[in-house]
Protein backbone atom coordinates (compact mmCIF):
# COMPACT_ATOMS: atom_id res chain seq x y z
CA UNK A 1 0.00 0.00 0.00
CA UNK A 2 2.86 2.29 -0.80
CA UNK A 3 2.58 4.44 -3.86
CA UNK A 4 -1.06 4.77 -4.63
CA UNK A 5 -1.71 6.84 -7.67
CA UNK A 6 -4.73 8.98 -8.08
CA UNK A 7 -7.25 9.04 -10.83
CA UNK A 8 -8.36 6.21 -12.97
CA UNK A 9 -5.15 4.33 -13.46
CA UNK A 10 -4.75 3.74 -17.15
CA UNK A 11 -3.46 0.31 -17.95
CA UNK A 12 0.00 0.04 -19.36
CA UNK A 13 0.47 0.72 -23.02
CA UNK A 14 1.90 -2.68 -23.63
CA UNK A 15 -1.24 -4.34 -22.30
CA UNK A 16 -3.43 -2.08 -24.34
CA UNK A 17 -1.35 -2.76 -27.41
CA UNK A 18 -1.46 -6.46 -26.81
CA UNK A 19 -5.21 -6.32 -26.49
CA UNK A 20 -5.47 -4.38 -29.72
CA UNK A 21 -3.08 -6.67 -31.52
CA UNK A 22 -5.07 -9.70 -30.48
CA UNK A 23 -8.25 -8.00 -31.53
CA UNK A 24 -6.72 -7.25 -34.90
CA UNK A 25 -5.53 -10.84 -35.19
CA UNK A 26 -8.96 -12.16 -34.34
CA UNK A 27 -10.59 -9.97 -36.97
CA UNK A 28 -7.86 -10.98 -39.37
CA UNK A 29 -8.51 -14.65 -38.64
CA UNK A 30 -12.11 -14.16 -39.57
CA UNK A 31 -11.13 -12.36 -42.73
CA UNK A 32 -8.69 -15.13 -43.57
CA UNK A 33 -11.45 -17.64 -43.17
CA UNK A 34 -13.85 -15.69 -45.29
CA UNK A 35 -11.50 -15.09 -48.21
CA UNK A 36 -11.29 -18.70 -49.37
CA UNK A 37 -15.00 -19.07 -48.72
CA UNK A 38 -15.76 -16.16 -50.98
CA UNK A 39 -13.30 -17.42 -53.54
CA UNK A 40 -14.84 -20.89 -53.56
CA UNK A 41 -18.37 -19.54 -53.60
CA UNK A 42 -17.51 -17.10 -56.34
CA UNK A 43 -16.05 -19.84 -58.49
CA UNK A 44 -18.99 -22.15 -57.87
CA UNK A 45 -21.61 -19.48 -58.41
CA UNK A 46 -19.91 -18.04 -61.45
CA UNK A 47 -19.62 -21.42 -63.11
CA UNK A 48 -22.72 -22.95 -61.65
CA UNK A 49 -25.26 -20.30 -62.35
CA UNK A 50 -25.32 -20.97 -66.08
CA UNK A 51 -27.09 -24.27 -65.68
CA UNK A 52 -28.92 -23.50 -62.43
CA UNK A 53 -32.33 -23.72 -64.02
CA UNK A 54 -35.57 -25.56 -63.65
CA UNK A 55 -34.54 -28.28 -66.04
CA UNK A 56 -31.49 -29.00 -63.93
CA UNK A 57 -33.56 -29.30 -60.80
CA UNK A 58 -36.33 -31.41 -62.28
CA UNK A 59 -34.63 -33.68 -64.80
CA UNK A 60 -32.29 -36.60 -64.56
CA UNK A 61 -29.46 -37.51 -66.88
CA UNK A 62 -31.31 -40.41 -68.43
CA UNK A 63 -30.87 -40.49 -72.17
CA UNK A 64 -28.62 -37.47 -72.21
CA UNK A 65 -25.87 -38.37 -74.62
CA UNK A 66 -22.23 -37.48 -74.29
CA UNK A 67 -22.49 -34.37 -76.42
CA UNK A 68 -26.01 -33.30 -75.42
CA UNK A 69 -26.62 -30.18 -73.47
CA UNK A 70 -29.42 -30.14 -70.93
CA UNK A 71 -30.10 -32.83 -68.41
CA UNK A 72 -30.16 -32.30 -64.73
CA UNK A 73 -29.45 -33.63 -61.28
CA UNK A 74 -32.89 -34.44 -59.99
CA UNK A 75 -31.96 -38.08 -59.53
CA UNK A 76 -28.83 -37.08 -57.65
CA UNK A 77 -30.65 -34.57 -55.46
CA UNK A 78 -33.22 -37.17 -54.44
CA UNK A 79 -30.46 -39.65 -53.81
CA UNK A 80 -28.40 -37.29 -51.68
CA UNK A 81 -31.39 -36.23 -49.61
CA UNK A 82 -32.41 -39.80 -48.94
CA UNK A 83 -28.91 -41.02 -48.26
CA UNK A 84 -28.09 -38.20 -45.90
CA UNK A 85 -31.43 -38.55 -44.16
CA UNK A 86 -31.00 -42.25 -43.55
CA UNK A 87 -27.35 -41.84 -42.61
CA UNK A 88 -28.41 -39.27 -40.01
CA UNK A 89 -31.21 -41.48 -38.76
CA UNK A 90 -28.66 -44.19 -38.12
CA UNK A 91 -25.70 -42.17 -36.93
CA UNK A 92 -27.23 -39.42 -34.84
CA UNK A 93 -29.10 -41.58 -32.32
CA UNK A 94 -26.26 -44.03 -31.99
CA UNK A 95 -23.67 -41.29 -31.82
CA UNK A 96 -25.61 -39.22 -29.34
CA UNK A 97 -26.42 -42.13 -27.08
CA UNK A 98 -22.81 -43.20 -27.21
CA UNK A 99 -21.70 -39.73 -26.21
CA UNK A 100 -24.21 -39.87 -23.35
CA UNK A 101 -22.79 -43.19 -22.34
CA UNK A 102 -19.25 -41.88 -22.38
CA UNK A 103 -20.01 -38.76 -20.39
CA UNK A 104 -22.76 -39.86 -18.05
CA UNK A 105 -22.43 -43.59 -17.56
CA UNK A 106 -19.03 -44.75 -18.71
CA UNK A 107 -17.02 -42.95 -16.02
CA UNK A 108 -13.73 -44.07 -17.44
CA UNK A 109 -14.49 -47.78 -17.30
CA UNK A 110 -13.06 -50.34 -19.62
CA UNK A 111 -15.94 -50.26 -22.10
CA UNK A 112 -15.85 -46.50 -22.33
CA UNK A 113 -12.11 -46.57 -22.91
CA UNK A 114 -12.57 -49.06 -25.72
CA UNK A 115 -15.29 -46.96 -27.27
CA UNK A 116 -13.20 -43.81 -27.08
CA UNK A 117 -10.32 -45.71 -28.58
CA UNK A 118 -12.30 -46.81 -31.60
CA UNK A 119 -14.04 -43.49 -32.03
CA UNK A 120 -10.64 -41.81 -32.09
CA UNK A 121 -9.40 -44.24 -34.67
CA UNK A 122 -12.46 -43.79 -36.81
CA UNK A 123 -12.05 -40.02 -37.03
CA UNK A 124 -9.23 -40.55 -39.49
CA UNK A 125 -10.66 -43.33 -41.57
CA UNK A 126 -10.46 -42.62 -45.29
CA UNK A 127 -13.99 -42.46 -46.56
CA UNK A 128 -13.53 -45.19 -49.13
CA UNK A 129 -12.92 -47.68 -46.35
CA UNK A 130 -16.43 -47.33 -45.01
CA UNK A 131 -17.75 -47.94 -48.51
CA UNK A 132 -15.60 -51.02 -48.90
CA UNK A 133 -16.83 -52.29 -45.58
CA UNK A 134 -20.48 -51.94 -46.47
CA UNK A 135 -19.82 -53.41 -49.89
CA UNK A 136 -18.19 -56.44 -48.34
CA UNK A 137 -20.78 -57.05 -45.65
CA UNK A 138 -24.03 -55.80 -47.04
CA UNK A 139 -23.68 -56.34 -50.76
CA UNK A 140 -21.27 -59.22 -51.13
CA UNK A 141 -21.77 -61.23 -47.94
CA UNK A 142 -25.48 -60.65 -47.40
CA UNK A 143 -26.29 -60.41 -51.09
CA UNK A 144 -28.24 -57.18 -50.73
CA UNK A 145 -28.52 -54.95 -53.79
CA UNK A 146 -26.77 -51.65 -54.29
CA UNK A 147 -29.08 -49.07 -52.78
CA UNK A 148 -29.32 -45.64 -51.24
CA UNK A 149 -29.61 -47.32 -47.88
CA UNK A 150 -26.33 -49.14 -48.34
CA UNK A 151 -24.81 -45.73 -49.06
CA UNK A 152 -26.46 -44.33 -45.97
CA UNK A 153 -24.85 -47.04 -43.89
CA UNK A 154 -21.44 -46.22 -45.29
CA UNK A 155 -22.01 -42.52 -44.64
CA UNK A 156 -23.25 -43.20 -41.13
CA UNK A 157 -19.95 -44.87 -40.30
CA UNK A 158 -18.24 -41.63 -41.25
CA UNK A 159 -20.73 -39.53 -39.31
CA UNK A 160 -20.59 -41.41 -36.06
CA UNK A 161 -17.17 -40.40 -34.83
CA UNK A 162 -17.86 -36.73 -35.56
CA UNK A 163 -21.20 -36.89 -33.77
CA UNK A 164 -19.79 -38.75 -30.80
CA UNK A 165 -16.75 -36.62 -30.32
CA UNK A 166 -18.49 -33.28 -30.68
CA UNK A 167 -21.49 -34.29 -28.58
CA UNK A 168 -19.16 -35.70 -25.95
CA UNK A 169 -17.38 -32.38 -25.80
CA UNK A 170 -20.63 -30.45 -25.49
CA UNK A 171 -22.01 -32.73 -22.79
CA UNK A 172 -18.86 -32.32 -20.76
CA UNK A 173 -19.40 -28.58 -20.81
CA UNK A 174 -22.71 -28.84 -18.98
CA UNK A 175 -21.99 -27.66 -15.44
CA UNK A 176 -22.30 -30.30 -12.76
CA UNK A 177 -24.34 -27.86 -10.71
CA UNK A 178 -27.24 -28.49 -13.02
CA UNK A 179 -27.02 -32.23 -12.79
CA UNK A 180 -26.85 -31.95 -9.02
CA UNK A 181 -29.83 -29.65 -8.92
CA UNK A 182 -31.82 -32.16 -10.86
CA UNK A 183 -30.68 -35.20 -8.89
CA UNK A 184 -31.55 -33.41 -5.69
CA UNK A 185 -35.11 -33.13 -6.92
CA UNK A 186 -35.23 -36.90 -7.07
CA UNK A 187 -35.12 -36.87 -10.82
CA UNK A 188 -33.73 -40.11 -12.17
CA UNK A 189 -30.49 -39.88 -14.02
CA UNK A 190 -31.96 -40.59 -17.41
CA UNK A 191 -34.56 -37.87 -17.11
CA UNK A 192 -31.89 -35.53 -15.88
CA UNK A 193 -29.94 -36.29 -19.01
CA UNK A 194 -32.92 -35.96 -21.31
CA UNK A 195 -34.50 -32.91 -19.72
CA UNK A 196 -31.58 -30.98 -18.31
CA UNK A 197 -28.26 -32.04 -19.79
CA UNK A 198 -29.22 -32.50 -23.42
CA UNK A 199 -31.25 -29.27 -23.68
CA UNK A 200 -28.37 -27.33 -22.15
CA UNK A 201 -25.96 -28.78 -24.68
CA UNK A 202 -28.47 -28.63 -27.51
CA UNK A 203 -26.99 -25.90 -29.70
CA UNK A 204 -23.56 -27.41 -29.45
CA UNK A 205 -24.86 -30.84 -30.34
CA UNK A 206 -26.71 -29.41 -33.32
CA UNK A 207 -23.51 -27.81 -34.52
CA UNK A 208 -21.68 -31.11 -34.27
CA UNK A 209 -24.42 -32.98 -36.10
CA UNK A 210 -24.43 -30.40 -38.86
CA UNK A 211 -20.67 -30.73 -39.24
CA UNK A 212 -21.14 -34.44 -39.64
CA UNK A 213 -23.97 -33.97 -42.12
CA UNK A 214 -21.97 -31.48 -44.14
CA UNK A 215 -19.06 -33.82 -44.21
CA UNK A 216 -20.90 -36.85 -45.50
CA UNK A 217 -23.09 -34.88 -47.87
CA UNK A 218 -19.94 -34.22 -49.87
CA UNK A 219 -18.53 -37.75 -49.87
CA UNK A 220 -17.96 -39.48 -53.18
CA UNK A 221 -15.92 -42.60 -52.66
CA UNK A 222 -18.18 -44.52 -50.27
CA UNK A 223 -21.13 -43.91 -52.56
CA UNK A 224 -19.43 -45.42 -55.59
CA UNK A 225 -19.18 -48.73 -53.80
CA UNK A 226 -22.61 -48.78 -52.23
CA UNK A 227 -25.21 -46.80 -54.14
CA UNK A 228 -23.37 -47.56 -57.38
CA UNK A 229 -24.28 -45.02 -60.03
CA UNK A 230 -27.19 -44.26 -62.27
CA UNK A 231 -28.49 -41.68 -64.68
CA UNK A 232 -32.08 -42.53 -63.96
CA UNK A 233 -34.36 -41.56 -61.15
CA UNK A 234 -34.70 -44.09 -58.38
CA UNK A 235 -36.88 -42.91 -55.54
CA UNK A 236 -36.60 -46.13 -53.64
CA UNK A 237 -33.71 -45.92 -51.20
CA UNK A 238 -33.87 -49.62 -50.42
CA UNK A 239 -33.44 -51.14 -53.82
CA UNK A 240 -31.35 -50.48 -56.87
CA UNK A 241 -28.60 -48.06 -57.78
CA UNK A 242 -29.05 -44.44 -56.85
CA UNK A 243 -27.13 -41.32 -57.56
CA UNK A 244 -25.74 -38.75 -55.18
CA UNK A 245 -24.78 -35.17 -55.85
CA UNK A 246 -21.10 -35.52 -55.00
CA UNK A 247 -20.94 -38.50 -57.31
CA UNK A 248 -22.69 -36.48 -59.94
CA UNK A 249 -20.29 -33.58 -59.56
CA UNK A 250 -17.28 -35.84 -59.61
CA UNK A 251 -18.51 -37.67 -62.69
CA UNK A 252 -19.53 -34.64 -64.68
CA UNK A 253 -16.37 -32.76 -63.82
CA UNK A 254 -14.29 -35.60 -65.21
CA UNK A 255 -15.95 -35.58 -68.60
CA UNK A 256 -14.46 -34.10 -71.70
CA UNK A 257 -17.28 -31.72 -72.61
CA UNK A 258 -17.96 -28.22 -71.42
CA UNK A 259 -21.66 -28.92 -70.98
CA UNK A 260 -20.77 -31.65 -68.51
CA UNK A 261 -18.38 -29.38 -66.68
CA UNK A 262 -21.10 -26.76 -66.41
CA UNK A 263 -23.38 -29.38 -64.94
CA UNK A 264 -20.68 -30.29 -62.45
CA UNK A 265 -20.47 -26.73 -61.16
CA UNK A 266 -24.22 -26.44 -60.96
CA UNK A 267 -24.31 -29.71 -59.07
CA UNK A 268 -21.75 -28.33 -56.65
CA UNK A 269 -23.79 -25.19 -56.23
CA UNK A 270 -26.90 -27.25 -55.58
CA UNK A 271 -25.10 -29.38 -53.03
CA UNK A 272 -23.78 -26.34 -51.20
CA UNK A 273 -27.25 -24.84 -51.17
CA UNK A 274 -28.75 -28.02 -49.78
CA UNK A 275 -26.23 -28.27 -46.96
CA UNK A 276 -26.64 -24.56 -46.30
CA UNK A 277 -30.38 -24.93 -46.03
CA UNK A 278 -30.13 -27.92 -43.73
CA UNK A 279 -27.72 -25.97 -41.58
CA UNK A 280 -30.03 -23.01 -41.51
CA UNK A 281 -33.00 -25.12 -40.50
CA UNK A 282 -30.99 -26.79 -37.77
CA UNK A 283 -29.82 -23.46 -36.45
CA UNK A 284 -33.31 -22.07 -36.47
CA UNK A 285 -34.50 -25.05 -34.49
CA UNK A 286 -31.63 -24.62 -32.05
CA UNK A 287 -32.39 -20.94 -31.72
CA UNK A 288 -36.07 -21.56 -31.31
CA UNK A 289 -35.38 -24.06 -28.55
CA UNK A 290 -32.92 -21.83 -26.76
CA UNK A 291 -33.84 -19.95 -23.61
CA UNK A 292 -32.31 -16.78 -25.00
CA UNK A 293 -35.17 -16.50 -27.40
CA UNK A 294 -37.80 -16.90 -24.74
CA UNK A 295 -36.05 -14.65 -22.27
CA UNK A 296 -35.95 -10.86 -22.20
Amino acid sequence: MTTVQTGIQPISTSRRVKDRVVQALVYLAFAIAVVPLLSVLWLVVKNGLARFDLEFLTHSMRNIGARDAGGGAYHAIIGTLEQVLFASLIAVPIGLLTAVYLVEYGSGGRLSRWISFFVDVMTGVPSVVSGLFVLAFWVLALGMPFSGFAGAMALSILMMPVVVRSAEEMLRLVPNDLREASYALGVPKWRTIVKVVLPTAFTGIVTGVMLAVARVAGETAPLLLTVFFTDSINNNPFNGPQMGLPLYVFDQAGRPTDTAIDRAWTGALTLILIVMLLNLVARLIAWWRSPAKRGS
Partner: protein
Amino acid sequence: MAKQIEVSELDAYYGAHKAIEDITMTIEPRTVTAFIGPSGCGKSTFLRTLNRMHEVVPGARVEGKVRLEDQDLYGPDVDPVSVRRTIGMVFQRPNPFPTMSIYDNVAAGLRLNGRFSRSELDGIVESSLKGANLWNEVKDRLNKPGSGLSGGQQQRLCIARAIAVRPQVLLMDEPCSALDPISTLAIEDLISSLKQDYTIVIVTHNMQQAARVSDKTAFFNLAGQGQPGKLIEMDDTSKIFTNPGEKATEDYITGRFG
Protein backbone atom coordinates in the same frame (compact mmCIF):
# COMPACT_ATOMS: atom_id res chain seq x y z
CA MET B 1 -44.41 -38.42 6.37
CA ALA B 2 -41.68 -37.13 8.53
CA LYS B 3 -38.87 -39.51 9.20
CA GLN B 4 -36.18 -39.99 11.72
CA ILE B 5 -32.64 -40.14 10.39
CA GLU B 6 -29.98 -42.08 12.18
CA VAL B 7 -26.38 -41.60 11.23
CA SER B 8 -23.70 -43.82 12.60
CA GLU B 9 -19.95 -43.66 12.28
CA LEU B 10 -20.02 -41.82 9.02
CA ASP B 11 -16.89 -40.75 7.15
CA ALA B 12 -16.90 -38.90 3.86
CA TYR B 13 -14.02 -38.53 1.45
CA TYR B 14 -13.08 -36.42 -1.56
CA GLY B 15 -10.68 -38.75 -3.26
CA ALA B 16 -8.04 -39.44 -0.64
CA HIS B 17 -9.00 -36.42 1.46
CA LYS B 18 -11.22 -37.29 4.40
CA ALA B 19 -13.56 -34.32 4.82
CA ILE B 20 -15.63 -35.54 7.78
CA GLU B 21 -15.04 -38.27 10.26
CA ASP B 22 -16.95 -40.52 12.55
CA ILE B 23 -20.25 -38.72 12.74
CA THR B 24 -23.03 -40.32 14.74
CA MET B 25 -26.29 -38.51 15.33
CA THR B 26 -30.02 -38.87 15.29
CA ILE B 27 -32.19 -36.34 13.52
CA GLU B 28 -35.67 -36.33 14.96
CA PRO B 29 -38.75 -36.29 12.75
CA ARG B 30 -40.84 -33.14 12.57
CA THR B 31 -38.15 -31.02 14.03
CA VAL B 32 -35.75 -28.49 12.66
CA THR B 33 -32.12 -29.38 13.18
CA ALA B 34 -29.49 -26.70 12.63
CA PHE B 35 -25.87 -27.40 11.71
CA ILE B 36 -23.38 -24.74 12.69
CA GLY B 37 -19.63 -24.56 12.55
CA PRO B 38 -16.76 -22.72 10.94
CA SER B 39 -16.34 -22.54 7.22
CA GLY B 40 -14.81 -25.65 5.69
CA CYS B 41 -15.62 -27.92 8.60
CA GLY B 42 -17.73 -30.22 6.49
CA LYS B 43 -21.31 -29.10 7.08
CA SER B 44 -22.18 -29.10 3.40
CA THR B 45 -20.39 -32.36 2.90
CA PHE B 46 -22.26 -34.01 5.73
CA LEU B 47 -25.57 -32.62 4.55
CA ARG B 48 -24.95 -34.08 1.13
CA THR B 49 -24.26 -37.50 2.53
CA LEU B 50 -27.77 -37.53 3.95
CA ASN B 51 -29.42 -37.74 0.56
CA ARG B 52 -26.61 -39.42 -1.29
CA MET B 53 -25.65 -36.29 -3.18
CA HIS B 54 -22.10 -36.59 -1.97
CA GLU B 55 -21.36 -39.51 -4.25
CA VAL B 56 -22.23 -37.40 -7.28
CA VAL B 57 -18.90 -35.60 -6.95
CA PRO B 58 -16.31 -37.56 -8.93
CA GLY B 59 -14.07 -39.52 -6.62
CA ALA B 60 -16.16 -38.84 -3.56
CA ARG B 61 -17.28 -41.68 -1.30
CA VAL B 62 -18.91 -42.39 2.01
CA GLU B 63 -18.30 -44.93 4.73
CA GLY B 64 -20.72 -45.66 7.53
CA LYS B 65 -24.47 -45.89 7.86
CA VAL B 66 -27.38 -43.56 7.38
CA ARG B 67 -30.80 -44.97 8.21
CA LEU B 68 -34.13 -43.40 7.42
CA GLU B 69 -36.50 -45.08 9.87
CA ASP B 70 -35.45 -48.66 9.36
CA GLN B 71 -33.86 -48.45 5.93
CA ASP B 72 -30.18 -48.05 5.25
CA LEU B 73 -29.82 -45.33 2.62
CA TYR B 74 -26.56 -46.84 1.49
CA GLY B 75 -27.93 -50.38 1.34
CA PRO B 76 -27.16 -52.36 -1.77
CA ASP B 77 -30.70 -52.33 -3.23
CA VAL B 78 -31.33 -48.71 -2.56
CA ASP B 79 -31.78 -46.43 -5.49
CA PRO B 80 -30.22 -43.04 -4.81
CA VAL B 81 -32.92 -41.48 -6.96
CA SER B 82 -35.70 -42.50 -4.63
CA VAL B 83 -33.60 -41.42 -1.69
CA ARG B 84 -33.30 -37.97 -3.18
CA ARG B 85 -36.96 -37.85 -4.04
CA THR B 86 -37.72 -38.53 -0.41
CA ILE B 87 -35.03 -36.24 0.94
CA GLY B 88 -34.97 -32.90 -0.84
CA MET B 89 -32.19 -30.37 -0.85
CA VAL B 90 -31.48 -26.67 -1.30
CA PHE B 91 -27.88 -25.94 -2.27
CA GLN B 92 -25.51 -23.42 -0.83
CA ARG B 93 -25.05 -21.81 -4.24
CA PRO B 94 -28.29 -21.13 -6.06
CA ASN B 95 -28.40 -23.19 -9.24
CA PRO B 96 -31.54 -22.57 -11.28
CA PHE B 97 -31.79 -24.38 -14.62
CA PRO B 98 -30.66 -21.81 -17.17
CA THR B 99 -32.55 -23.35 -20.05
CA MET B 100 -35.84 -23.26 -18.19
CA SER B 101 -38.24 -20.49 -17.40
CA ILE B 102 -39.05 -19.55 -13.83
CA TYR B 103 -42.22 -21.59 -14.01
CA ASP B 104 -40.44 -24.60 -15.44
CA ASN B 105 -37.75 -24.33 -12.81
CA VAL B 106 -40.30 -24.67 -10.04
CA ALA B 107 -42.25 -27.33 -11.88
CA ALA B 108 -39.09 -29.21 -12.85
CA GLY B 109 -39.15 -31.72 -10.03
CA LEU B 110 -42.83 -32.44 -10.58
CA ARG B 111 -42.66 -32.61 -14.33
CA LEU B 112 -39.64 -34.77 -14.38
CA ASN B 113 -41.17 -37.21 -11.95
CA GLY B 114 -44.64 -37.77 -13.23
CA ARG B 115 -47.74 -36.52 -14.90
CA PHE B 116 -49.52 -33.53 -13.55
CA SER B 117 -52.28 -31.61 -15.21
CA ARG B 118 -51.53 -28.04 -16.12
CA SER B 119 -53.86 -26.70 -13.47
CA GLU B 120 -52.38 -28.92 -10.79
CA LEU B 121 -48.95 -27.68 -11.80
CA ASP B 122 -50.12 -24.08 -11.78
CA GLY B 123 -51.40 -24.52 -8.27
CA ILE B 124 -48.26 -26.13 -6.95
CA VAL B 125 -45.97 -23.62 -8.66
CA GLU B 126 -47.92 -20.73 -7.20
CA SER B 127 -48.05 -22.13 -3.70
CA SER B 128 -44.36 -23.03 -3.77
CA LEU B 129 -43.34 -19.59 -4.99
CA LYS B 130 -45.55 -18.03 -2.34
CA GLY B 131 -43.94 -20.25 0.26
CA ALA B 132 -40.53 -19.00 -0.85
CA ASN B 133 -41.79 -15.41 -0.81
CA LEU B 134 -41.04 -14.96 -4.47
CA TRP B 135 -44.47 -15.03 -6.04
CA ASN B 136 -45.08 -11.31 -6.03
CA GLU B 137 -41.78 -10.54 -7.67
CA VAL B 138 -42.05 -13.04 -10.49
CA LYS B 139 -45.72 -13.63 -11.10
CA ASP B 140 -45.60 -11.39 -14.16
CA ARG B 141 -42.62 -13.06 -15.69
CA LEU B 142 -43.06 -16.73 -15.01
CA ASN B 143 -41.95 -17.65 -18.49
CA LYS B 144 -38.74 -15.64 -18.43
CA PRO B 145 -35.49 -17.54 -17.84
CA GLY B 146 -34.55 -18.13 -14.23
CA SER B 147 -31.06 -16.81 -14.79
CA GLY B 148 -32.21 -13.20 -15.07
CA LEU B 149 -33.01 -12.99 -11.38
CA SER B 150 -31.07 -11.30 -8.62
CA GLY B 151 -28.95 -13.45 -6.32
CA GLY B 152 -31.58 -13.55 -3.60
CA GLN B 153 -34.35 -14.23 -6.06
CA GLN B 154 -32.44 -17.17 -7.45
CA GLN B 155 -31.99 -18.56 -4.00
CA ARG B 156 -35.68 -18.32 -3.28
CA LEU B 157 -36.43 -19.88 -6.63
CA CYS B 158 -34.33 -22.86 -5.63
CA ILE B 159 -36.19 -23.11 -2.35
CA ALA B 160 -39.50 -23.04 -4.20
CA ARG B 161 -38.23 -25.73 -6.53
CA ALA B 162 -37.23 -27.94 -3.64
CA ILE B 163 -40.47 -27.63 -1.71
CA ALA B 164 -42.61 -28.10 -4.82
CA VAL B 165 -41.86 -31.83 -4.83
CA ARG B 166 -42.79 -32.13 -1.14
CA PRO B 167 -40.01 -34.32 0.11
CA GLN B 168 -40.34 -35.95 3.50
CA VAL B 169 -37.04 -34.55 4.63
CA LEU B 170 -35.70 -31.19 3.49
CA LEU B 171 -32.02 -30.37 3.67
CA MET B 172 -31.20 -26.68 3.33
CA ASP B 173 -27.64 -25.45 2.95
CA GLU B 174 -27.60 -21.84 4.07
CA PRO B 175 -30.92 -21.06 2.44
CA CYS B 176 -30.98 -17.49 3.63
CA SER B 177 -27.39 -16.49 3.03
CA ALA B 178 -28.25 -14.14 0.18
CA LEU B 179 -31.58 -13.00 1.53
CA ASP B 180 -32.67 -9.75 3.01
CA PRO B 181 -34.36 -9.76 6.41
CA ILE B 182 -37.86 -9.79 5.01
CA SER B 183 -37.28 -12.79 2.79
CA THR B 184 -35.34 -14.45 5.58
CA LEU B 185 -38.32 -14.03 7.82
CA ALA B 186 -40.57 -15.50 5.20
CA ILE B 187 -38.33 -18.51 4.77
CA GLU B 188 -38.13 -18.99 8.48
CA ASP B 189 -41.91 -18.90 8.66
CA LEU B 190 -41.98 -21.45 5.88
CA ILE B 191 -39.62 -23.68 7.82
CA SER B 192 -41.78 -23.45 10.91
CA SER B 193 -44.87 -24.40 9.00
CA LEU B 194 -43.14 -27.18 7.09
CA LYS B 195 -41.92 -28.78 10.26
CA GLN B 196 -45.49 -29.75 11.12
CA ASP B 197 -45.10 -32.47 8.55
CA TYR B 198 -41.49 -32.71 7.52
CA THR B 199 -38.09 -33.25 8.96
CA ILE B 200 -35.85 -30.29 8.26
CA VAL B 201 -32.11 -29.86 8.47
CA ILE B 202 -30.62 -26.43 7.94
CA VAL B 203 -27.03 -25.30 7.71
CA THR B 204 -26.59 -21.74 8.86
CA HIS B 205 -23.87 -19.34 9.85
CA ASN B 206 -26.38 -17.14 11.47
CA MET B 207 -26.55 -17.94 15.16
CA GLN B 208 -29.74 -15.99 15.71
CA GLN B 209 -31.35 -17.86 12.91
CA ALA B 210 -30.29 -21.17 14.38
CA ALA B 211 -31.64 -20.06 17.72
CA ARG B 212 -34.87 -18.84 16.20
CA VAL B 213 -35.87 -21.70 13.96
CA SER B 214 -34.24 -24.86 15.19
CA ASP B 215 -35.19 -27.37 17.83
CA LYS B 216 -31.85 -29.12 17.83
CA THR B 217 -28.43 -27.75 17.00
CA ALA B 218 -25.33 -29.67 15.97
CA PHE B 219 -21.95 -28.01 16.18
CA PHE B 220 -19.18 -29.18 13.85
CA ASN B 221 -15.57 -28.28 14.00
CA LEU B 222 -12.28 -29.16 12.42
CA ALA B 223 -9.96 -31.26 14.50
CA GLY B 224 -7.18 -29.10 13.11
CA GLN B 225 -5.83 -27.66 9.87
CA GLY B 226 -6.07 -30.22 7.07
CA GLN B 227 -7.88 -32.67 9.32
CA PRO B 228 -11.41 -33.90 8.86
CA GLY B 229 -14.41 -32.17 10.40
CA LYS B 230 -16.08 -33.75 13.38
CA LEU B 231 -19.36 -33.43 15.22
CA ILE B 232 -18.50 -31.74 18.49
CA GLU B 233 -21.88 -31.85 20.11
CA MET B 234 -25.56 -31.94 19.37
CA ASP B 235 -28.34 -31.04 21.72
CA ASP B 236 -31.47 -29.00 22.14
CA THR B 237 -30.96 -25.61 20.65
CA SER B 238 -31.79 -23.86 23.89
CA LYS B 239 -29.20 -25.93 25.66
CA ILE B 240 -26.48 -25.32 23.06
CA PHE B 241 -27.02 -21.59 23.08
CA THR B 242 -27.26 -21.18 26.82
CA ASN B 243 -25.22 -23.93 28.28
CA PRO B 244 -23.15 -25.83 25.75
CA GLY B 245 -21.40 -28.97 26.87
CA GLU B 246 -18.12 -28.22 25.14
CA LYS B 247 -15.76 -25.35 25.44
CA ALA B 248 -15.30 -25.16 21.65
CA THR B 249 -19.01 -24.71 21.14
CA GLU B 250 -19.18 -21.93 23.63
CA ASP B 251 -16.19 -20.22 22.07
CA TYR B 252 -17.72 -20.42 18.65
CA ILE B 253 -21.13 -19.17 19.68
CA THR B 254 -19.98 -16.36 21.83
CA GLY B 255 -17.05 -15.47 19.59
CA ARG B 256 -19.10 -13.06 17.65
CA PHE B 257 -22.57 -13.12 16.26
CA GLY B 258 -22.86 -13.10 12.47
